[in-house]
């Protein structure tokens, strides 16, 4: 932190020099403290405030649904959850999503780079909270949404614009503090 700045052979007459490491550390500490107060999972999204991309995904084979397309968005605030059966955090997050659906929130799903049979087993095992579910086999639609990795969750307002993006598993706290107030506001 201070190595380069400190004269390796200090003279006694310059006691100020010896404070340099302390000052540099204090500066570092301030940044670390601010860094701590920030949530590393809130990645900025260029799409927030813009209309959701146009897409039409086929249904998950064997699920009674027409798939999921941009035409299913709008009209009311909607949650779009991008997940995969092979992703562990998705499994952790799933009960949170299911509870939101039980509370009457419209939840749509994008099944990312998944095998249909795996996804079916997964939904059978953990429950299926999704109104519409699209199978994004090659992950192309997820790219248009700007997805970095699963799970990610978007809030789309009633005009079909992306209002919020959450990276990583949704925790109950995120729902209480961010998702529900936002949905309330968008109504």
């Amino acid at each position: 932190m201070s190595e380069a700045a400190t004269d390796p052979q200090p003279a006694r007459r310059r006691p100020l020099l010896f404070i340099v490491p302390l000052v540099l550390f204090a500066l570092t500490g301030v940044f670390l403290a601010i860094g701590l107060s920030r949530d590393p999972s809130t990645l900025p999204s260029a799409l927030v405030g813009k209309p959701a991309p146009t897409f039409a995904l086929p249904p998950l084979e064997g699920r009674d649904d027409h798939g999921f397309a941009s035409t299913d968005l709008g009209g009311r605030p909607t949650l779009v959850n991008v997940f995969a059966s092979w992703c562990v955090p998705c499994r952790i997050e799933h009960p949170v999503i299911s509870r939101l659906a039980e509370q009457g929130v419209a939840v749509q799903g994008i099944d990312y780079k998944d095998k249909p049979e795996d996804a079916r087993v997964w939904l059978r095992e953990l429950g299926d909270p999704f109104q519409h579910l699209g199978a994004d086999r090659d992950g192309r639609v997820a790219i248009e949404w700007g997805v970095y990795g699963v799970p990610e969750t978007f809030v789309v307002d009633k005009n079909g614009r992306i209002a919020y993006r959450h990276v990583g598993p949704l925790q109950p706290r995120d729902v209480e503090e961010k998702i529900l107030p936002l949905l309330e506001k968008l109504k």
Partner: protein
Amino acid sequence: MIAEIGHYALVLALGMALVQGTFPFWGAARRDPVLVGLACPTALAQFLFVSLAFGALIHAYVTSDFSLANVAQNSAVEKPMIYKISGTWGNHEGSLVLWVWILALFGALVAALGSNLPPAFRARVLGVQALIGVGFLAFMLFTSNPFLRLDPAPLDGRGLNPILQDPGLAMHPPLLYLGYVGLSTAYSFAVAALIEGRIDATWARWVRPWTLMAWIVLTLGIAAGSYWAYYELGWGGWWFWDPVENASLMPWLAATALLHSAIVVEKRDTLKSWTILLAILAFSLSLLGTFLVRSGVLTSVHAFATDPARGVFILGLLTVAIGGSLVLYAWRAPAMQGGGVFAPISREGGLLLNNLLLSTAAATVLLGTLYPLVLDTIGGDKISVGAPFFNATFVPLMVPLLLAVPVGSMLAWKRGDLAGVMDRLLAAVGVTFAAGLLWLALHDFRASLAAGGLALGVWVIAGSLNELLLRLGVAWPLDLSRVLARARGLPRSAWGMALAHAGLGVLVLGITVQGAGQIERILVMKPGETTELAGYEVRFDGVSQVQGPNYTAQRGTFTVTTDGAPVTVLHSEKRFFPIEGMPTTEAGIDTTLWRDLYFVLGDPAPDGGFAVRLYYNPLVLWIWGGALMMAAAGVLSLSDRRLRVGAPRPARAKTEPAPAGA
């Protein structure tokens, strides 16, 4: 029940550390031998209690006691025994127990082996060591208790992150922690010296073996981590400038600088306050590394436990430990008088250059690691600083360092003779130019950068060989008995220095040749298809399904031949761990001294083929070989009588200016 004993032992350890961190200071200040005498027994007792807790936690893992939340979250019944044990430290809480255990271990070692230290000084060292322990034991008990119970207990655990289920993981964290935490002794010695307000050649002599010990294990730990990343992550690379890797590199650079500057303190009684600062910084960087990995401030592929609440606690610890010691430094260090004048061309001048370059390199790595955080904090973008930054800043600092290594280690103390040294290094200079030109001749001018790197590596190796031969008096005509007699008389630290520097050269050679000569082929292969890689014919035999103890895998088989002669058969697996629901990749690697063949099976393609990645990595083994040589050199130096931990105080009569090696 055993878990409760472990929990209670942690509380007792905290109590011991509190006693050890207060009364000895008081005793040392009041010259009270009874209070001073408390330091050693409490240090040993603290170690005993932490060992008990550590043992209890390992026991819970081995017996799959899922009534402990920590075990349930990180282990499973269907897991090989070695990973049950290594799983103990494969998570946040458990790794903290390991951390504190090693801290207590070093405290106990100072108590048991430090009989050559003055009692008051030893009491202060142990006191400082105990205060660090208080911080971390409290951190563990209040925010990260590994002994919390779950009720009801689940039938099976959630398993261990499969990427961590690997023999490398059983070794890597303990080694790394031994190194990190081992630097705490150097820190404690420095802070104790600041409290006493006195530092002299004997202080340097005391602190060096402890620093060297930590440095050896840190070197091994970083090498093990790099090797693990190489074969487990399946990317064909061995260093990724990931924040977690940087967190281990920074203390290593600082410790390396410290090892060298302590020689100057010992021999020339100067550079004192700088050496103290380095001792503080080396451990501070270890603490910072712990903070970065644990707090979630930086996101990284390696970080397996992040929690902002814990981050606040560690930041508090950091502020007290680093801030406190630097306040002490600002207050007491100016009074530490340096002796002697510094001639730029001298052994101490060379060591100073070494220190400047190494510490600048550490600062560079720190800057690159923290820059994304700073930028984010002041409202900029979320960015990540990657290899290009480090290659552009770190490498140029290493070039002058490597150039100077052979010269600096041959310069005399006080006033060196550069022309004379170069004259004696003529053989090494010749070999170096020959190697560089040979590389250019075999390749073309575009390879000049690689030729430069290669020449640097050869220069460092040839230089240390050259010096060793000169010191042994190898000349024409060869007088074997004289050489042998000299070899016996040469201090082990001199052998150590030669070996360490040669190891550095081997490392540089490995890095350069691997980087310049790597051949990567990414293609889709159908079973039965053959392709060419660096003169080898590689046939993809197909994929079979295999069942592991706690995973299923697709195993791809590759047969390698050269001109029809069989070379090897390699298997690369894509494993799937059902409990954890995660896939991992096992590369198929064939290692020889000169090259690695490194094959990775990828995803199936629609036409029945498989995506495969084939790498030819020349000289890659030398990277870890060089690191091993450096560590071995450290052991050799440590066995030198003058440095040995716990060796009786050496006689002052030594007149021969035996150069100490690192």
